[in-house]
């Protein structure tokens, strides 16, 4: 049992730190939930990619550095400590790319991954539907066979960043009337600007168009854009969901950096007699460290050949609740200034509030923990 990094890993950390110090924009980019900010973040993705820092864990042929999970964690620690911009390509990089590595073809990887790494093609996740949220398998959007491909129809919703993104991936019902809802689903990729696609931005809590609904009317998708076997989409999708909740969606680096900033704020602003607030700041520091160490333990298991199963649900509930507590503490430290809607903390606060809802709600995660980790009997849903 040890926490020391090898000299080679330390050298990697130093290299990342040096590069970031020289490249991170001195003034923050505009919010990536705006058209202007989206464009600025694409430029940043291209800059990262030019020196192969956009997808460090990918193989070199696709623009990565072949970094293992520990190096990925180290990179993320440095990235967030340097105050680098949010990642506009994260849906593709964290969700679609792992799916393509596991279930895609060589041709799909070669065609899709390089432009994803460089931010030229930004991907949106089109899973949820108006009537299929937690019960995702009840989705009704259809894929109908046609010459050389499929025709997609239906409606997707809550698709993050779809308002400005280029392409999307999601599940479609290709065999109606199967005995179980998880059967007969196909995993497909489509162009958000293809004929038959209408994207309508939805304002999130603060009004910014952070997500969108997507209407599909006989949108043609060629066979080459099916991932895995037609009809076998559920299995493909679930391996992606594991990635999302497990390791890659929220790196500890983000919370370590935020906890550091919170301590600075506390030192600068706090009333020393307010021990209740002091305790919450301490809990934020402790929580970031706990999440870092928990993730290092998972990464160790991963390096030893293990996989991330239902344990991923522990992660998801922890970080989403932690994120809200951290931001609430910052707003309380700011006092009346905490009301201002245009600080980093307020932007982070609004973002944090959605954490317990997306990537599988925390109620669903708690069911998974209870049934699959604790072995409690399944109840009525």
């Amino acid at each position: 049992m040890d926490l020391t990094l090898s000299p080679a890993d330390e050298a990697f950390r130093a290299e990342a730190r040096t590069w970031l110090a020289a490249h991170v924009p001195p003034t923050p980019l505009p919010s990536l939930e705006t058209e202007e900010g989206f464009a600025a973040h694409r430029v940043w993705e291209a800059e990262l990619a030019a020196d192969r820092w956009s997808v460090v864990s990918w193989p070199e042929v696709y623009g990565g550095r072949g970094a293992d999970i520990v190096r990925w964690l180290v990179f993320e620690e440095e990235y967030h400590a340097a105050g680098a911009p949010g990642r506009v390509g994260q849906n593709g990089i964290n969700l679609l790319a792992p799916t393509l590595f596991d279930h895609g073809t060589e041709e799909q990887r070669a065609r899709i991954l390089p432009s994803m790494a460089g931010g030229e093609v930004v991907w949106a996740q089109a899973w949820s539907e108006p009537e299929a949220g937690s019960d995702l398998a009840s989705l009704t959007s259809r894929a109908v066979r046609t010459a050389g491909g499929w025709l997609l129809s239906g409606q997707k919703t809550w698709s993050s960043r779809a308002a400005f993104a280029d392409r999307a991936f999601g599940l479609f019902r290709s065999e109606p009337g199967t005995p179980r809802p998880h059967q007969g689903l196909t995993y497909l990729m489509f162009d958000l600007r293809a004929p038959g696609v209408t994207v309508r931005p939805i304002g999130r809590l603060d009004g910014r168009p952070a997500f969108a609904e997507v209407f599909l009317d006989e949108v043609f998708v060629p066979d080459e854009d099916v991932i895995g076997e037609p009809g076998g989409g559920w299995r493909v999708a679930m391996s992606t969901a594991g990635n999302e909740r497990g390791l890659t969606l929220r790196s500890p680096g983000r919370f370590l950096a935020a906890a550091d900033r919170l301590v600075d704020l506390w030192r600068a602003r706090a009333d020393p007699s307010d021990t209740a607030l002091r305790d919450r700041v301490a809990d934020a520091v402790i929580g970031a460290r706990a999440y870092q160490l928990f993730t290092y333990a998972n990464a160790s298991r991963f390096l030893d050949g293990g996989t991330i199963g239902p344990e991923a649900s522990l992660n998801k509930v922890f970080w989403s609740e932690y994120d809200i507590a951290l931001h609430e503490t910052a707003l309380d430290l700011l006092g009346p200034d905490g009301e201002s809607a245009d600080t980093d903390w307020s932007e982070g606060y609004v973002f944090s509030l959605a954490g317990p809802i997306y990537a599988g709600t925390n109620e669903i995660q708690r069911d998974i923990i209870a049934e699959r980790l604790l072995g409690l009997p399944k109840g009525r849903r």
Partner: protein
Amino acid sequence: MRFLLDPQQRAFADSLDAMLTAADTPSVVRDWIRGDHGSGRALWSRIAKVGVFALAVPEAYEGMGPHPAELAVGFVELGRHAVPGPLVETVAAAALLAELADPVPAGRLLPSLASGEASATLALDGAYALDGDAATTRLALAADGLRLAPGHGPVRTSLDPARRLTPLTPGGELLAAAPPVAHALVWARLATAAQALGVGLALLDRTVAYVRQRTQFGVPVGSFQAVKHRLADAKIALEFARPLLFGAALTMAPADVAAAKVTACEAAYATARTALQLHGAIGYTAEYDLSLWLAKARALRTAWGTPAECRAEVLSGGARRR
């Protein structure tokens, strides 16, 4: 970087677990509560034989340590089995004696603590010492330094009846004028955190087993979502306390150990509340064994540093991670 217990550490935990399971610790605890220390002493020497106390004692004094990570592994098991006695106090005393500038008291007292022939308790600044009636070495931090107390006063009961609170008799031999109390406190907090994590894990296991077999409305109560979600939260809290504990054992930095202490103790206490609630009335009885762990979760929360003291320690250091 392999932040996981290695096979030897796991084997150590497993052998201790097997030994303690066979020892029927609940009946040992009940003897201890009555002030009958015979079965507890016998168990103590078996725990020492496995090497638990020697992990806190340097090799120079016939121990095998210091090995904080292995000690934490061992103390999780002691907590899981609700082992009674001045366990943490013996570790704290060993850490304190080992670091005294004068090696004579350590040479005299540590070998028997490592071997389990002796046990120790330690009172800081006039506070109660735990199990002063059972411990053979009673250390008191007085105004003028560390003293070997000649005896103890009347036993006061604790919220955990297995913890016997004893004032120590003033006076006795002066061992050191300026003992390294901060160092001992770090070891005491680490051991307490580990013990609390073990207590929490036992409470969760017992409660999961109970709600699987207790039926109401024709189904196991463990199939109700409100029940499941409380247990899921207990699981999350305990699983995030675990890496803090072992991370702290690797660094032994006071802030890391304080973070582990407050987190493990809060997780164990929250789990105790859940365990009591989900057992219903049977959980609220003294004769049902669950009470042995419930009471300990409460007592450990304030032992060797309240939550507020530990949180203040976390923020006291100026140094940043990285």
